[in-house]
């Protein structure tokens, strides 16, 4: 099995280059992460990438695989055309090889105040929420912050500091939809203006790449609807 992998080490390389690797005896059903780990262990310790849980829950190993963003640990090699071309997630600075600097992404996440706000005194037990109210959070709370969506979004590439991006907006929606949250008005107000939310042009790349099957475009649409009905 053949791989072409983006390499860059700022200490030694003037510019990035592509390195070829080859693995034999790759069993069917092997995930890309397992192949990368084998390359690192058997051939080249300097190949650098993030990884942890190996089952698509921690969100560490987002990368661009044959032109599409995805998590290496849940991408089966069987599904990939050879040679497999692997690059870092696009649109954010590269630290080394497949490792990007995610600070801008995290900054936008923090910007939506991604935490429950309750102003009333808390009861001594749980806040009540019906199963129907809770169901509104399905498809929103499962995000693993892998950045596959935001780094596939042209609007985010062009304005990563002004457009919040699909991941942060999905998170905004997660709190706007939460029946327990008491910051509804403020949350909508904060998203006004031409950039933060409205730079989404429903290109839908985010939906196509999300490894958790989430739909940020739909979430953004829900926020827009709420803004409209609020202004009426």
């Amino acid at each position, binding site marked *: 099995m053949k791989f072409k992998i983006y390499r860059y*080490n*700022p*200490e*030694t390389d003037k510019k990035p280059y592509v390195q070829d690797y080859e693995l034999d005896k790759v069993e069917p*059903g092997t*995930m890309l992460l397992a192949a990368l780990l084998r390359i*690192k*262990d*058997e051939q*080249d*310790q*300097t190949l*650098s*990438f*993030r*990884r*942890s*849980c*190996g*089952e*698509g*829950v*921690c*969100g*560490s190993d987002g990368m661009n695989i044959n032109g599409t963003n995805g998590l290496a640990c*849940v991408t*089966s090699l069987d599904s990939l055309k050879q040679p497999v071309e692997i690059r870092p997630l696009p649109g954010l600075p590269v*630290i*080394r*090889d497949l*490792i990007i600097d*995610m600070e801008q992404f*995290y900054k936008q996440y*923090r910007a939506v*105040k*991604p*935490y*429950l706000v*309750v102003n009333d005194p*808390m009861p*001594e*037990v*749980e*806040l*009540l*929420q*019906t*199963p129907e*109210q*809770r169901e509104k*959070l399905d498809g929103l*709370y*499962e995000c*693993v*912050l892998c950045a596959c969506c935001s780094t596939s979004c042209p609007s985010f590439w062009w304005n990563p500091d002004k457009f919040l991006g699909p991941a942060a907006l999905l998170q905004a929606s997660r*709190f706007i939809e*939460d029946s*327990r949250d008491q910051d509804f008005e403020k949350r909508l107000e904060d998203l006004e203006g031409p950039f933060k939310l409205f730079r989404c042009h429903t290109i839908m790349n985010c939906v196509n790449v999300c490894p958790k*099957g989430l739909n940020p475009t739909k979430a953004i649409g829900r926020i827009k609807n709420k803004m409209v009905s609020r202004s009426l």
Partner: protein
Amino acid sequence: MSESNRQPIERRQFDTLIIGAGGGGLRASLQLAEADLSVAVVSKVFPTRSHTVAAQGGMNAALANVGPDNWHWHMFDTVKGSDYLGDQDAIEYMCRTAPKAVYELEHFGVPFSRLDNGKIYQRAFGGQSQNFGGDQAARTCAAADRTGHAILHSLYQQNIRAKTHFFDEYFAVDLLQGDEGQVLGALVFNINDGSIIVIEARTTLIATGGAGQIFKTTTNALINTGDGMGMAMRAGIPLQDMEFYQFHPTGIAGRGMLITEGARGEGGYLVNADGERMMERYAPKAKDLASRDVVSRAIAIEVREGRGCGPKKDHVMLKLDHLGEEVIQKRLPGIRQTCITFLGIDPAEAPIPVFPTAHYTMGGIPTNRHGQVVVPVKDTPEEPVAGLYAAGECACVSVHGGNRLGGNSLLDILVFGRAAANHIIEYLKENKYHQQIDDAAINKVVDKVRRYDKPGTGKETVAGLRDELKQVMEEHCSVFRNKEILNQGVDKIERLAERMKDLSIDDQSYTFNTAKVEAFELENLMAVALATIHSANAREESRGAHSRTDFTERDDIAWMRHSLYSFENGLDYKPVRTKPISVESFPPKPRVY
């Protein structure tokens, strides 16, 4: 980038240093940040990548939202589940505090699943009963089968609100100590650029999680390398009860991905090659919801006796399809996706091949119920180490004893992360000033980090030694053990540890050098493996997850005591704290489910 390494070593001062940003670390940091203390959280990965994120089934608390329940029943189940090795003061504290810990999480925003009346959904889990061993209890609070994800993200979010200071992608190498063993902080390096920082702290909390990577097949993430346990051992602190390692009954066979016990809690069950519902023979009453050690042994026996499934007869099947697609999608969406991704099997249509898989470190850094790290000093078995705390899977408080109940792990990290923080707040009032850290102590660790700046001459590789270690532990320290297998295992691990001095790496960069991180992780894995196999070899009885085929019975007279293993003294023992805080002690009884 290498410029920064020529600069003098930076020193930062905080009231508290927390190493690890999983549920335990983040619960503690939140408590401390809200008490207006300065807290540094050092994590080798971005916080939401920590392994708490992978916890599925839920968190136990006697809320009685589904049926009658109370904390005392929960305490009984936990003591029994521990095979009477758990410390009953800590267990009482945990079970009493559990409801409060869950309500707090709910207030932090955790999206728990809900019952029709709006209260938190609770499901049945293994080893839980009403009325001290009666009917099955439903005590496990769940957010579908993504409870760990929901909790970790909510805690991180609350820490954003509280403005906790994070050192993301920094690796803690070693604790820094004063002359009397007191802990004064730690030396860490920035993975991003290789720069070294000394973090001076009046209190240090280790919350680095478990060490499942000592085994070949494991549900654990690659980051679960027992870093805090290794650090503690190098600081002269023994590890407690390391022979008690939990094998989860339902890892995906051969692959290791976890299938939550909640799958059986929702009504799933195990079948052997004959299609027989096998657990009825091993646990007539609790059946598939017996304790994990019991179910894991049952599966291993079925396979050993030729009733395994598949062409190699090397696993059994977990059947869920009778639950119907709706229940599976609503309550178990995560494991459904995992099965489809890794097996091409939809559990709504076909059974899942499963086998016991390394899952949880019951042992760890010994602490009392306030999270203080305690060591034997002369005649005192549990003397606090000044300035040092531990909580969660890296710690041994010990609420799990010989076998942890499902749903008690998330509970442990939250209750004792919080308890440790509360004790730290008091401790800091009495200990107002930072102590000077000796240059010699710092330089020793700096040299260790710098060792990898130049190419080494040793012929051993990280991957080579690590793969051997995992293979040896898998073969010699698994579900069933005996003297011969363990003796060989001890020899093999000792020889591997010897070879560590010939370790070198091919990557000398300062920039995001993951080869260097893996070398330090291997040092920690080796320490944990040594402690585990030595402790297992010495314990000549069967208790909880430690099953000896040559000593098949529990021996309360000789062995109802905690093991302690240290580099300096080898094995030592201390008594179990059998006296609870306010209720009567649960005396040891035969353990049947």
